[in-house]
């Protein structure tokens, strides 16, 4: 089985399991006492946010190894992880406001998780733009590694500064951001969802990696 096909299978399994998680989360997981149905967004929102961040950290790590080893496979992985990370960031940034509007009465709020993800989203955009703006593959890989490493180092500072910034603003009354301590059935749902998002990340990255590989090969043939 080619790499792309393996990726497709993993993604397919992930999507099917996602449907199962949906059913479990919406129909079979109890409502949270104080927050009601709105709380259920955390089953999607939090795993997506975690992977948005992890994908960036992995890009940074790949960058470090690339600068030492100069292995193009590391750069290809970074390219893939960046695109997938952007997709997950989009999920966080769209589901946040959708759920926030009825609760807080406004589309956007400078909640810690949303703001951090917004900054990460700009990081991803910058990363993808940089990759698009450099023609030479070797130079592109090096520049991407530099930006990726800086991005990875930025992540903890984003968290800290956003957390400090957020405490200036009035706290949302109904919902407290952050993972509440969960009773068992909710915890299981959350863990399943996190597992599914992990699977989807892997499946997407494998496919995107295969795509990058294929493009390089075709480039060589044409040249």
């Amino acid at each position, binding site marked *: 089985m*080619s790499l*792309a*096909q393996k*990726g*497709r299978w993993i*993604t397919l399994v992930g*999507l099917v399991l*996602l449907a199962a998680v*949906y059913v479990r*989360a*919406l129909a079979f997981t109890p409502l949270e006492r104080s927050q009601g*149905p*709105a709380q*259920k*967004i955390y089953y*999607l*929102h939090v795993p*997506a946010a975690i992977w948005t961040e992890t994908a960036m950290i992995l890009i940074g790590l790949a960058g470090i190894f690339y600068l030492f080893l100069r292995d193009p496979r590391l750069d290809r992985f970074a390219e893939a992880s960046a695109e*997938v990370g952007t*997709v997950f960031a*989009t*999920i966080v940034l*769209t*589901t946040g406001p*959708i*759920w926030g509007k*009825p609760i807080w009465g406004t589309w956007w709020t400078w909640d810690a998780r949303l703001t951090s993800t917004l900054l990460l989203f700009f990081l991803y955009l910058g990363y993808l733009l940089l990759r698009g703006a450099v023609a030479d593959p070797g130079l592109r890989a090096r520049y991407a590694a530099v930006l990726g490493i800086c991005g990875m180092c930025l992540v903890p500072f984003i968290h800290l500064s956003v957390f400090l910034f957020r405490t200036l603003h009035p706290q949302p009354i109904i919902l407290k951001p952050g993972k509440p301590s969960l009773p068992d059935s909710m915890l299981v749902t959350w863990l399943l969802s996190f597992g599914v998002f992990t699977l*989807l990340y892997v499946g*997407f990255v494998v*496919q*995107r990696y*295969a*795509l990058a590989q*294929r*493009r390089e*090969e*075709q480039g060589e*043939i*044409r040249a």
Partner: protein
Amino acid sequence: MVAAYIVTAVILLAYAFSLYRRIGKDERGPGRVPGVSSDERSR
């Protein structure tokens, strides 16, 4: 709130589909050198 679930699903499916199409397009690929088949290599 269910809207959020729908939007998430839409985004994931759209991306999965986009990958499917892009990889598929590369498999068929424009103007390849005759005698070199990427299909054989990938199978």
